[in-house]
């Protein structure tokens, strides 16, 4: 026989859910409220990230940063990211060549293939795609780790041991994320060009020598590489701050960790695109 009973938990849940508002406000009001709310929460996030940055910089200035944590994180973040960076970069280079292929064939401009593939890759595509990949892997993972530590009170346990969580946990992770992205971008630049050169040979019969001559003939210089690396540094800052901020702000147990990771991924990606635009605008590409 099946007995139907109302569990105390279900009753509690029913009591705590707020009843639907009876009178729906006008559509415009709702829209404006949502817009205002969106701005407020964006400002709140930006404010939180700025405060965190100040705290981190204060620790870094006094060299209060745990060296062992730094190395551990660098290994976990950089070394373990190599495979996805290799795949992303090689294919990015190859795709750039495929895109350039029609023009190169039509005008017989083999000598320009290196420039054509290299320009966009070094200045824009490699830093951007690497940042998005690293954000998905390293930023999200870091938020999940910090968020779990927060909800299981491991951060409180550190505090009770007279340890400053910003100096011990956050500052090393911040430095590790920023440097990981920077190094991975440099690495991705080289690999993308490598992928492009060999795709050029396989697809268009352009020899790698011609490719690299086109690359170094004077149309591209170190400034283009530096441009991309500067962007990767800026992307690293926003990604590291978002990742640590949302991790530390986690509330509400395991579902809260999921929400925090979600916020990190969305905020990092949005931040990366907006900053890409602003930086490109400011430094002319």
């Amino acid at each position, binding site marked *: 026989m099946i007995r139907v009973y109302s569990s105390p938990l279900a009753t509690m849940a029913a009591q705590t859910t*707020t009843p639907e508002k009876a009178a729906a406000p006008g559509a415009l009001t709702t829209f404006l409220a949502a817009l205002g709310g969106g701005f407020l929460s964006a400002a709140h996030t930006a404010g939180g990230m700025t405060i965190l940055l100040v705290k981190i910089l204060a620790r870094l200035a006094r060299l209060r940063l745990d060296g062992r944590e730094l190395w551990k994180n660098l290994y976990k973040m950089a070394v373990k990211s190599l495979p996805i960076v290799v795949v992303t970069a090689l294919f990015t280079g190859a795709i750039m060549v495929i895109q350039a292929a029609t023009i190169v064939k039509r005008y017989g401009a083999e000598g320009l293939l290196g420039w054509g593939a290299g320009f966009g890759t070094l200045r824009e595509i490699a830093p951007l795609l690497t940042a998005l990949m690293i954000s998905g892997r390293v930023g999200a993972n870091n938020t999940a780790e910090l968020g*779990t530590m927060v909800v*299981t*009170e*491991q951060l*409180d*346990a550190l*505090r*009770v*041991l*007279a*340890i*400053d969580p910003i100096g011990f946990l956050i500052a090393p992770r911040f430095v590790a994320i920023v440097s990981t992205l920077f190094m991975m971008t440099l690495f991705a630049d080289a690999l993308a060009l490598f992928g492009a050169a060999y795709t050029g040979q396989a697809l268009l019969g352009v020899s790698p020598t011609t490719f690299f001559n086109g690359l170094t003939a004077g149309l591209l210089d170190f400034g283009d590489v530096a441009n991309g690396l500067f962007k990767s540094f800026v992307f690293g800052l926003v990604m590291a701050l978002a990742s640590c901020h949302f991790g530390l702000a986690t*509330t509400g147990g395991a579902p809260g960790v999921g929400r925090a990771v979600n916020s990190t991924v969305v905020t990092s990606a949005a931040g990366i695109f907006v900053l890409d635009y602003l930086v490109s605008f400011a430094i002319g590409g």
Partner: protein
Amino acid sequence: MITIQSVSKAFRPSGGGPPNQVLEGVSLHVPASCLYGLIGPGASGKSVLLKMIVGLMKPDSGSITVDGVDVTQASELDLQKMRLKFGMLFQNNALFDHMTVGDNIAFPLRRLTDLGEDQIKDRVMERLAHVALTGFEGRLPAGLSGGQKKRVGVARATITRAPIVLYDEPAAGLDPVTSQKIFELLREEQRASGATVVMVSSDLDRLLTVTDRVGMMYRGRLIFDGTTHEAQTSEEPRVRQFVHGLTEGPL
């Protein structure tokens, strides 16, 4: 010693709604070298009060002084200094889940003392033996049972021999025999070191065999504070019902 004066705290639910008054005018004095048992039904504010004593949470009003320092007003740096005096066991243990059992227990010593690795290792082994976990030093917390995690937490909280120790449910999830052993171990060590100890436990039968004084929380208020004997013979209906585990009564 710890002095708590008219401490109140309300949590505001993030989704709005009425605030949850968790502590209301709690005043309490834990004398030096006293083993103080804090009891009370679930959600009566015991864990929150422990966290306030180490400054992890701030009360809305009232003050808490530890050896003369007001932890509710102290700066983060002063709090850090003050916390060197503390050992703490969290209700959920708060073990560092990326560290082995051995590293978890050794961590406070590595961070807070200048002991060499050999000495640290000896101390860790001694602690593990006391909580009947010899041979577990290489395991990760994720692979332990609830009671084993609890015992690792106890070992970590006691390894620095801190002058003030707060235990939140040191025997939760332990069988009666292990539970009694843990209580007796903590009592012996408290006697030997003269530490001031606050212990929250639902295992009243065993807790009251080791306490000097007892306080009872009920819905955010301290409704009883006295010696263990006074608690056991109290005529206050709620205290009487709770201490003797009666089903009939006001609770």
